[in-house]
Structures are given as structure tokens and as C-alpha cells.
């Protein structure tokens, strides 16, 4: 008797984008009812792989097989017809619609009667059909997306970073549901960068690095081995010189964050780097944005003794608060302006390039060239900033904030999406700013980065500080706080 073909078989998958090869020949297989974790660092190719399997992208080379048959989806709808469903990291829901309307949008026909039944089958509480999506919390929205994906009874389910926005309890419920699905014969492939999750729910692990499969291990493999496979060779960041700390330069008073989170109090000293860590969505970015004036709400901000409620960005810039915003393209750069103009934006009214009411373009260019050299930006000071690569664009944003000699520097996900060397450069610049006397507030989801740069680490959950550590907090301890253990 011939053995059953694997549920999913990929062979030599290739996918290129301008300037980068995201998938460089990926081959793997997964059996029916198996739960496979896809592990890898940022940029390893995990999301691209899921997109290709889910029909969102076409491969440039290689083959896919589903239960032994060739599988070449033309689009996500095609994949759905082949009973392959994807739950993306960024939800594709219509906020103004109800749950039921979103489901009806996604389904071709069929009734929603199975919605209730699915809850029982999976043990996952699903939001009611009449609820408006805009009123749902992040966890509920994700369960909606999962339920949506399961309505078509997929034989292969792909989850992209499913626990990134979940509380530990919600993550547990999710994993239980995944195991039940696997027991029914559904194959589940999920992307994660968290080693602990692998052990809890997966049968096997596939490790990706730079677009290729570097290892295929059982889930029981040692964490150390998994981490090594994931990261390979890492350049050591420069040891940070830890200097003395000064007075308190900034405070947040009862700053209320988005709904369902508690008000936060925070103090920041001159020369100190405070890192807010934790699962995204627990108030870290929200708190940082309040300090930078990017969002509004109850509570007060104090900088250098000046206490304000609802300060505007322009007020805060004048007080010396500068920010590296989280959304690089939308909030960080004016794409058609030159690199030099972007570099002086915000302090363009003061500086050597001023001649009375006029700006001297030549002097602006000189300043631009100086900063380009100082911060290692690969690009010309006079070219449009949109022509630079992502990493260099981020360096421009960092240069703008740091060269303004800020009293307070707020950095929101400053190294997200950057390659290793660019990230190291950015971290070094944060240290430089602190050494010059700024109080630095950093928001990051990268725990290693947090441990490396911080003088003080705060782990937030639901807006509350659930863990606080100083220099020397270990990565393991931090991961446990983030994972939900009490400090």
C-alpha cells in the first residue's frame, strides 16, 4: 500500500522582490494533522512564504503540492477553494461592519449557523454575529479572523504571528484550539519568533534564515539549538558605556491610554534609557506617543518642569522633545523633499542656514552633507529621500532627532524592519543621545535589544507596569515577565 502523500509539499520555492530575494529555494513538507512552527528572525522570509502558500503572491520558481496534487493558486480565493486558509498578522476586517457582515463578505455562500457550533468544537469564544468590529478588542478580532478562516473547513491553516497581540490566557486558548484542529486532521502552519510557543503547541519546527530552510527539528529540541539556528552569526553590538544619571527631565502623570488600559505614571531622567517592553498593544507605543505629542487624551506631560495637558507636537519640539516615530513612511519622512530638507525639518527656523527670513539652500545642503556623513547614511544630501533604502531612511529620521540635541528622545520601534548592521547603528545613536544628557524612552518588541540598551526596563500589560528591572536584567527573566509571569 502506497503511503499517503504529505498534506503540503514545497520544493525549491523562489520569490524575488526588487533588491532582495525573499525566498531562495524553500523546501519542506508537512503531514496531515501536523502542527508545524515556522521560526526565523525578521526578514527571514516567513511572511513571504505564507503569502505564497496562501495565494497572495506567486512564486518565481519551485513547486507546491497539496495532498499529492499540484497546487498553484492564482489568488487568495483560489487558495480558499483548495481549502487553504490564511490568518494574517494585520487583520483585513471592515471596521464599520458587524461580525456577520464581515463573514458574509468573505464567504461565497452558505449559512452562518456553523458559527455557534464552531465555538464549542474549538473551545474558543467567538464574538457574536451582531457585534460591530470597531467595538471589538484585538483578541476578539483575531478570533473573528480565525473563525472566518475556519468556516470553509480548510485542510491547511496558516497563522502569521498569531500571538503577537494576545494575552497569555488568550494565547493558551488559541493553542488548545489549534491542537483540537490538528486532531481533526487539519494541518496547521504558524509563524512565530517565540521559542516558548514552539514547545507548547507544535509537533515540528522549520527554521528559516535568509530565505532558506536551515533546519527541520522536532519541537522538543533545545531552545539554545533553536536560537542558534535562527540567528546564525550575529555581530556584537558595541558595549554601551553606562554613565551617571541626572535629574528627572520628563514625567507622565496619569496618562490614560487607549480604551481598556489603565492610566500610567512614568519618570525619565537625563542620560537614562528607559525601555517599554511587552506584547504590542499593551500601551507601550501609546505612552510614547503621548510623550511625543502624537496623540491626545487625559493626563499630563511634564518636560523640564513645564507641565502641560494635551501638548501639541510643536509645543513639545520647542521644549526639546524629539521623536523617532513608529510609522516610518507615513510619519517620519516627506518623500519628495530632499534628504537635507528632511534632516532639518522641525528646526529649519533656527540654524546657520538662516539669513533673516530666508533659508540659504547652499547652507542647508552643507548641513545635510555633514549629517549624512556623521550618521552613515548611504545617499546624497540633495536627492529625494524616497530614493533611499528603508534602512537609510530610518537613519535620516534618527539623525534628524538626535542632531537636534534633544532633552527628551522618544524612539518607537526604532529598529523595526532594519537589517542587523543598520539596527546596531541606530542603537548606538540612541546611546550617544543619552550620553549627551537626553532622557531616552524606547519602545521595542525585540527583547534582546531591550536588554542590551536599557538602563531601566518596564514591562507593560494592559497599561500597568507588571515588571521593572534595571541594567543587567536577564533575557530569560524579561521573557518570562512578557510571557505573563509576575515579576
Amino acid at each position: 500500500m502506497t503511503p499517503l502523500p504529505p498534506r503540503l509539499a514545497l520544493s525549491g520555492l523562489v520569490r524575488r522582490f526588487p533588491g532582495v530575494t525573499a525566498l531562495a529555494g524553500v523546501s519542506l513538507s508537512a503531514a496531515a494533522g501536523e502542527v508545524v512552527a515556522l521560526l526565523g528572525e525578521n526578514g527571514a522570509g516567513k511572511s513571504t512564504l505564507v503569502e505564497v502558500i496562501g495565494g497572495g503572491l506567486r512564486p518565481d520558481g519551485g513547486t507546491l503540492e497539496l495532498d499529492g496534487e499540484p497546487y498553484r493558486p492564482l489568488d487568495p480565493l483560489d487558495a480558499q477553494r483548495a481549502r487553504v486558509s490564511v490568518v494574517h498578522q494585520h487583520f483585513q476586517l471592515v471596521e464599520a461592519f458587524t461580525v456577520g457582515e464581515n463573514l458574509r463578505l468573505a464567504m461565497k455562500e452558505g449559512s452562518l449557523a456553523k458559527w455557534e457550533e464552531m465555538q464549542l468544537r474549538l473551545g474558543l469564544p467567538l464574538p457574536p454575529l451582531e457585534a460591530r468590529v470597531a467595538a471589538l478588542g484585538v483578541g476578539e478580532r483575531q478570533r473573528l479572523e480565525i473563525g472566518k478562516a475556519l468556516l470553509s473547513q480548510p485542510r491547511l491553516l496558516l497563522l502569521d504571528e498569531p500571538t503577537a497581540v494576545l494575552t497569555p490566557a488568550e494565547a493558551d486558548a488559541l493553542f488548545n484550539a489549534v491542537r483540537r484542529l490538528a486532531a481533526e486532521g487539519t494541518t496547521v502552519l504558524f509563524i512565530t519568533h517565540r521559542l516558548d510557543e514552539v514547545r507548547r503547541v507544535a509537533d515540528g519546527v522549520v527554521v528559516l534564515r535568509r530565505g532558506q530552510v536551515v533546519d527541520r527539528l522536532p519541537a522538543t529540541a533545545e531552545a539554545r539549538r533553536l536560537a542558534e539556528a535562527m540567528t546564525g552569526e550575529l555581530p556584537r553590538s558595541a558595549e554601551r558605556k553606562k554613565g551617571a544619571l541626572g535629574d528627572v527631565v520628563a514625567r507622565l502623570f496619569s496618562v490614560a491610554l487607549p480604551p481598556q488600559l489603565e492610566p500610567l505614571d512614568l519618570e525619565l531622567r537625563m542620560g537614562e534609557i528607559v525601555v517599554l517592553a511587552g506584547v504590542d498593544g499593551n500601551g507601550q507605543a501609546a505612552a510614547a506617543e503621548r510623550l511625543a505629542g502624537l496623540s491626545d487624551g487625559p493626563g499630563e506631560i511634564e518636560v523640564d518642569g513645564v507641565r502641560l495637558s494635551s501638548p501639541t507636537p510643536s509645543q513639545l519640539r520647542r521644549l526639546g522633545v524629539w521623536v523617532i516615530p513608529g510609522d516610518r513612511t507615513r510619519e517620519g519622512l516627506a518623500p519628495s523633499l530632499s534628504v537635507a530638507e528632511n534632516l532639518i525639518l522641525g528646526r529649519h527656523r533656527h540654524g546657520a542656514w538662516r539669513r533673516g527670513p530666508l533659508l540659504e539652500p547652499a547652507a542647508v545642503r552643507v548641513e545635510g552633507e555633514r549629517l549624512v556623513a556623521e550618521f552613515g547614511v548611504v545617499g546624497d544630501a540633495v536627492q529625494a529621500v524616497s530614493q533611499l533604502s528603508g534602512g537609510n531612511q530610518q537613519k535620516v529620521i534618527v539623525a534628524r532627532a538626535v542632531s537636534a540635541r534633544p532633552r527628551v528622545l522618544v524612539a518607537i520601534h526604532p529598529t523595526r524592519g532594519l537589517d542587523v548592521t543598520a539596527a546596531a547603528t541606530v542603537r548606538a545613536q540612541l546611546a550617544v543621545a543619552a550620553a549627551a544628557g537626553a532622557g531616552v524612552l524606547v519602545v521595542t518588541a525585540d527583547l534582546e535589544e531591550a536588554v542590551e540598551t536599557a538602563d531601566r526596563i518596564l514591562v507593560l500589560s494592559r497599561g500597568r507596569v507588571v515588571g521593572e528591572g534595571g541594567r543587567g536584567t536577564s533575557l530569560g527573566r524579561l521573557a518570562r515577565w512578557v510571557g505573563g509571569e509576575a515579576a
Partner: protein
Amino acid sequence: MSPAEVLTAAAPLLWAALAELLGERAGVLNIGIEGVMLSGCLAAALTATPLGPWWGLAAAAVAGCLANLLFAMVIASGADQVVAGTGMVLVGAGLTGAIFRSLQARGFSGALVPTLPWGPLEVGALVLVALVWWFLQRTRAGLIVRACGENPDAVAAAGRNPVTVRVAVLAVAGGLVGVGGAALVLRAAGSFVEGMTAGRGFLALALVLLGRWRPLPIAIGTVLLGAATGFQFHLQGLGLAGVPYQLLLALPYVLTLAVLALVPPSRVGGPAALGKAYQRQR
């Protein structure tokens, strides 16, 4: 003014406003509706004069549909909706004006266009209000249209092309605007004059905004405005010496502006993706 007269005055605006509602619910802001309406007016007049008012009505619908399809194609290429719409206003005004004047030279005066009886266009407009509500809220197609206006990426993820949906909606909306133009020529006015829409297209835009993108409030606002517009003709007819008729002409615009100024600022209510060009991610 009798209710029947009010409806006649309001009908062109109502057809246009409901058409714009459909387009905006799909995510498209059509500034050029004024030009599309003019095309409908001219087509109605040109066709009705030799062939009778019913053919005129049909021609107006076709003309409006084609004009809006042009707009739809342009924005499907990713063009900015406001800019493209402005172009459509000029094209509509220029094309209808040019055609009309060159035909005038050959004897077509635009006066004495055969008219339609009271009923089909007025009652039709009211029926359309209910029809549009039912379509948007109770059909799957309407759900998809609304989704295009809120989150076109979600529509694409669900396997439909938002661009195709928008083009289809605009084609239908164009037909409705054309009918509105016909209502102007074949009912209210009985003749064609250059630029006869006199800003009704723009008023339709304002009405959709003021009616918070819901058919019934839009209809109510339109009828009220139609009454005000009709009322001004009455005032002129009465020869009210103290009130210069040009100021009365401006009344609907001033009223709309005043309401916009007085209603508190609210970003809530518009389709989330309204006015934004949709780019396919591949």
C-alpha cells in the same frame, strides 16, 4: 407650492444625490457629477426633440453612464479623484456647450423640448430612495459595495476586485445622474440652455455629506432644498421688488454653506476609504 411642484423641482437633484451616494459608498468622490448631469441634459434634449421624451430619457441615461465610465476608467488607473472630477466638470461643460452651439448654428434651438407627464420621474425618484436603501443594506452586492468604500483591501482579500466593483457602481450611478439631467430638461424646464444644471451637481455632493450617507436623510434634505429652489422662482414670479433675484439664485448655495458651517465638525460617518485611490498590492 403644491407637493407635486416641490417634487418636480427636487427630482433632478434627488436622482443625482442618490447616484452620488452609491458612488461614495463605494469609495469614490465624484466632483464631476455636474458635467455628467449636463451630458444627460443635452442628450435628453437632442433625442427628445425628434423622437419624443421617452427616447430622450433613455438617451440621457446612456449618456450619463458613458460619461461616468470615462471618469471611472481614469480613476481606475489610480488618478486622484478630485483632480479627475474637476476635469470632468470642464469636459462636460465644454463638450455640451460646443455641441449645442454648433447645432444652434444649424437650427437646433433647444427650446420647446417635448416633456414628460408628472409621475415617472418624480415617483421614480422616491422609489429609488427605498431601492438604494434596500440594495445597500439587504443584498450581498450592496455589502460588497459598502466594503469597497470602507476597506478595499478586505474586499481584495475576499477575492473580489475593488476596482471592478467601483467601475460598475459608477456606470450605474452615471445612468442615474443622466436621468436626473433628463428630469431637469424633460420636466422642470422643458428646454435646454447652456449650463442649465447651475450647480445642482455640486449641491448633490453637499447633500450626501449632510445626509450622512444615508438615503432617507438625503432625500429629506433634497426635497427641502428643492422646495427652496422652486420657491425662489415663485418669488421671482411675484416680482418681489425688494429682493433681487440674483441673491435668491444663490440661496441654495448659501443655505448649504451655512449648514456646513453650523453643524459641528464630525469626521464620523463617511466611508473610511472615501476619496482614496486604491492600489493593488502584488
